[in-house]
């Protein structure tokens, strides 16, 4: 059963890829305000990368709740359980 910590590590990797950064430090409170490259376009790119990583599907309503990393993790955990 996957943990929140593992998901955050996975997200770290995905963030680096999507935002084209070598490293990044994120926690539950990290939001689009903290990362320059996080805009509406890269947001969807994030979604699709997460979907591919865990083989899950989100709808528009679910994605709109993703205000910060913590909410993303909760959303992913819910889908995986």
């Amino acid at each position, binding site marked *: 059963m996957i943990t929140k910590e593992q998901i955050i590590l996975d997200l770290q990797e995905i963030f680096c890829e999507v935002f084209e950064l070598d490293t990044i430090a994120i926690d539950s409170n990290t939001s689009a305000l903290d990362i320059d490259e996080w*805009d*509406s*376009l*890269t*947001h*969807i*790119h994030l979604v*699709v990368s997460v979907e591919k990583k865990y083989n899950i599907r989100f709808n528009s309503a679910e994605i*709109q709740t993703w205000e910060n990393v913590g909410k993303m993790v909760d959303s992913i955990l819910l889908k995986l359980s």
Partner: protein
Amino acid sequence: MDVLFEISANASQYSDRNAFLINQQAYTYAAFAQVISNIRTEIAKPVYEQQQHIGLVANDDLETYASIIALWLEGKAYVPLSPEAPEDRNLNIIRQASLQTILDSSEPTFQFPCAMIASRQLEQGNIDLLPKEVAAEADAYILFTSGTTGQPKGVPISRGNVSSFMDAFWKIALEITEHDKVLQMFDLTFDLSVMSYLAPLCKGACCFTIPKDKIKYSYIFELMEDHQLTVALMVPSVLHHLRPYFDEINLPEMRYSLFCGEALPLDITEEWSRCLPNATIQNVYGPTEDTIFCTYYTFERNNSNKHLNGVLSIGKAMVNNITVIIDEHNNILDNGQEGQLCLGGAQLTAGYWRNDEKNRESFFDAQYQGKTERFYKTGDLCRSDSEGDILYVGRVDFQVKIQGFRVELTEIEFHAKQFFQKTNLVALAVTDNSGNSEIALAFETSEFDTHELLAYLKSKLPAYMLPKKFVFVQPFPLNVNGKTDRNKISKLIS
């Protein structure tokens, strides 16, 4: 629609890569995203909220493709209007679809009895490619095809239909990546265009279109050579036109060559395969009613290929699609028996647009593998072999394919008869010197000047439906049933 998410993600991931090459001008995914957002911002306004179907002038430019995506992001559907079609025909479609608004990148815009949105003159808006949530049953587009009664009939295709098609397509198709260069040769009023623009957009690849004022087959060949295209969906007519030049054609970068829209002859496919030594060639089949195409057959090099009367097999159903062959009483027949091909499954339209009569004629329910399934009658006579591959025999009616376009000969006859009342006439498809089908009109009269008639037909029918030959046969030969013998007249012409 997952497809929308993929496109939006690609706009971010491949923002510097080209999304389109249109009329020798390249446009990046970033530029595409901006134009989509501008149009989206406009149609998101409350004044358009109740309008589910928006007209789209089918031009060859970035704004037109951006309009499609913008409409889908807002949960709306597009109804393409060909700028080359006669005004009457477009007005008919506007009326049938009850369009109130049309997106038009032309400058100045066309004059239609609708609110015209000049899509090239919109303000720059914020980038917003987040799709609105919409039911799978919501329409993605409505395409109008030739109708037997003189009126074009509308085929609505839903978001669910399109999703199913893309799922099925990726399962039969080669892996397409952001490095691919995909040909889009079709008018947007033809559903083969949908696969041609969606496949590259879903993978971050580049879509190459054809300008309206160019000779298609020649421009296609130039694009393939100059830009090393890798993927192309085409109608067999293109091959007929290119055949005299096959010896000079060598396209080692082509990976994937698909054909649809018309019967594909085996011999010309064999010759074509030598021009593309590294490509997978597939014959795909399907009517507009079953979303783009629904069966496929992969051509085998160095092996025998299934064919009937020289025509390549159309193969088997793609995933989530059903094919059955029926007799005149809608009974499903076994393999090997000849009958009408019917289609069922997730790509099937919910029914013709506001046309219960046509729906009763063309759709029926039958028991299939323990369930009640809805089927569409294609009008194609076929039989399947012992392995389930379908072979095309002929038509049950008077529908023909001209350059891949569906043409009801009776539609042409209808308009000709409007002009020439009380004259016995028939429209026929005949083969020209290149092997392509063209329309001939035969009159049971002495010869007359056909200029006025042709001008009249030009005001009613799209170019591909116009007769290229006029013949005068007195009297018309009759068959054993006392009806006009069209075959005999055909033979007289060729």
